């Protein structure tokens, strides 16, 4: 259910595969994150991501376990890219299936907030003028705290 890969993936394929896996669900929510073409530093040429297996996968699995404890989910899928990506490339795919929509929406949102702030990834943005390692934004941390209540 969790895949960290240095190979490009197609969102349409991931959606189709998840739909097959979650046959019988009443609601499926999918989220796809793409490499943004612009940053504060200019046009993005490459986004480079590192992970540390199996610590990265174990952390995501704990977040998936927490989501499954909190909501009634029949299936969860997380695909995350590592390596070099170009603007427009998919970075992350999160899919949740549940009997009803609210659980699927909220669980996907919860998992993305985990992935944006706590997941074990290191991210380097390369523009024409510089390359820099980036950290989560303040709003990413604020989003994450919504689930602490």
């Amino acid at each position, binding site marked *: 259910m969790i895949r960290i890969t240095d190979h490009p993936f197609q969102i349409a394929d991931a959606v189709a595969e998840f739909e097959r896996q979650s046959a019988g669900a009443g609601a499926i929510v999918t989220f796809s994150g793409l490499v943004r073409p612009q940053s504060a530093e200019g046009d993005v040429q490459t986004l480079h991501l*590192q992970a540390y297996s199996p610590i990265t996968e174990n952390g995501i699995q704990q977040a998936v376990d927490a989501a499954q404890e909190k909501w009634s989910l029949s299936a969860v899928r997380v695909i995350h890219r590592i390596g070099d990506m170009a603007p427009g490339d998919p*970075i992350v795919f999160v899919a949740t299936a549940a009997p009803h929509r609210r659980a699927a929406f909220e669980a996907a949102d919860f998992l993305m907030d985990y992935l*944006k702030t706590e997941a074990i990834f*290191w991210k380097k943005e390369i523009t024409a003028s510089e390359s820099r390692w980036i950290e989560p934004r303040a709003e990413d941390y604020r989003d994450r705290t919504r689930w602490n209540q």
Partner: protein
Amino acid sequence: MATILYFGKLSSIFGELSEHTPIPVKIVDTKSLREWLDQSRGFDGALLHKSVRVAVNSEIVDDPFPVSDTDEIAFMPPVGGG
């Protein structure tokens, strides 16, 4: 030989993601390993920063944690999010 992994900005400073190196006999734990690598690899204090976590054989540990010459030791700066 131990395997040392450097993630994030540490990999940029070192120029590689990993190295295989014999650990000197006097290095017995993660704290002394940090200090030795920081000095000998030109990290200039970056490895000593409190925000850099260390993992031994894929388990995040607190300094000082015992290390041996067959371990995989990873230095992990703050994560960047996915």
